[in-house]
């Protein structure tokens, strides 16, 4: 088994009165794809957002427990949240490119982190777009608005934009739920490619997708992590009755 990139211990999250995460203990191995599955409202997105501290801005949120990334507690007092988010990239459910050119979208991250040299930026833009398997489709229109791309292209552009800050861990929240089957399979191939250099946590409602692309699967239910195991085990040999019911479609 690969080294552990990130783990959480007794992670609780409250939105005001609502207890949304109830003591999550999870391990995310390096250079693997970990899929989070579970019924709607069970806290998958919320959990994902605790990993790059996107929940910080929510009013009335209370988080306790540990989230350790490479042995550092990301909720420690002296954490630089911008550095954390540079290291932990995020791709959202709906493609959300900025209303600027394709080039400026990709260069945005490196620029805010201080990169000014044109040659370096050019190189990062090309490499990120290649890594996200969209370079050939956009190389002739880098100066054109990103919002002119199709939904599937926009999502790959957003993946490229995340890659441009050179993250180590990539969080993806249902990245293909708004896309057609062809774009979806392109992104699945892409994820398969990305696991070589990145650690990935992906939320998905699509069981086949989880089975196809992930090495590990975690099943969430009502704020609890019910079961975590290799994808093979979870899908063919689940230990918990509730996991079995869920993946066979008997509830949820």
């Amino acid at each position, binding site marked *: 088994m690969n080294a552990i990139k990130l783990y959480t211990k007794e992670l609780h999250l409250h939105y005001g009165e609502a207890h949304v995460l109830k003591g999550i203990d999870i391990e995310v191995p390096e250079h693997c794809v970990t899929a989070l599955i579970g019924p709607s409202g069970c806290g998958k997105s919320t959990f994902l957002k605790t990993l790059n501290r996107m929940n910080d801005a929510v009013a009335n949120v209370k988080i306790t427990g540990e989230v350790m990334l490479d042995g550092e507690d990301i909720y420690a007092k002296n954490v630089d949240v*911008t*550095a954390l*988010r*540079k290291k932990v990239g995020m791709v*959202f459910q*709906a493609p959300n*490119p*900025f209303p600027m050119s394709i080039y400026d979208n990709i260069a*945005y991250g490196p620029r805010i982190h201080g990169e000014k040299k044109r040659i370096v930026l050019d190189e990062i833009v090309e490499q990120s777009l290649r890594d996200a398997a969209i370079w050939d489709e956009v190389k002739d229109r880098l100066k054109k608005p990103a919002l002119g791309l199709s939904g599937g292209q926009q999502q790959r552009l957003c993946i490229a934009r995340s890659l441009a*800050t050179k993250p180590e861990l990539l969080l993806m929240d249902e990245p293909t739920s708004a896309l057609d089957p062809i774009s979806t399979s392109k992104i699945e191939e892409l994820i398969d490619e990305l696991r070589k250099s990145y650690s990935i946590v992906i939320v998905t409602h699509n069981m086949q997708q989880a089975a196809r692309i992930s090495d590990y699967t975690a099943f969430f239910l009502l704020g609890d992590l019910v079961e975590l195991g290799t994808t093979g085990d979870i899908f063919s040999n689940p230990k918990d009755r509730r996991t079995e019911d869920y993946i066979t479609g008997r509830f949820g």
Partner: protein
Amino acid sequence: MTKKTSVLSGKSAKPLVERAMNLIFLICGLASVISVVFMTVYMVASGGAIIAETGVLRFLLGRIWNPGSSEFGILPMILASLLATLCAVLVALPVGVLIAVFLAKLSPGKLAAGMRTFIDLLAGIPSVIYGLLGALLIVPMIFRLQKAAGLPNGGSLLAAILILVIMILPTIISVSETALRTVPKQYEEAALALGSTRLQCIFKVTIPAAKSGIVAGMVLGTGRAIGEAMAVMMVSGNAAIMPELLRPVRLLTAAIPIEWAYSSGLHRQALYGIGLVLFVFIMIINILLRQIMKKGGAHDE
């Protein structure tokens, strides 16, 4: 057996009410077009004569305004109007956008709501009140500068600029704020998730995304500034000399009401001429800014 309904009504396709409404809308639309055309024709007809008689260039570029000896050069007033408007917009735009950012993004909800009410009130105050405020507060504040420069105390271009800034700020703030508020949340989420600080997110993503709305605020502000007569008349000293920051100036708008009552003959025609020049300026500025706005909008799509 299922019952089938018919979609054919038997009557003419469009009901009478709808046709009547269409006619009413058409008439309203035509009325607005006709009034603009009529106004243009009237302005050209009444102001054109004196300009033709004096000579376009002598009228526009002449430096002496002396109706007594029939000298009608309005260059000082043109420059004063353009300078006052330009400076006022250049100052009010960044200040207004920053205040809008504060209201839309940074201030706690209650404070923002209070300030918003206040700003909306400011936008509705008649300009003569601003004129009084300017004459009582702003003009005397400039006395010291004028003294230091060895100039006589009194109204000045600077006072006109400041009063215009105050007058157009509410417009710029409220239009920009609306634009900033309507920027989709996903843009800001994406920016934060890439490691932007709150300020980077605002200045590099939110403001550019709200650009066309901010430009719209600027257009409205510019329109109000160049068309303002009463308030500037009360603070600018009204001497028809080449504009300098601390000396009195006369703006195109102020020139007309100042001399209207006692003008007659050629003199009165010259005031019509000034009206025509102002009219053309406002048209040009509107068309230019609208063009810019369209370009900004097209870029967003």
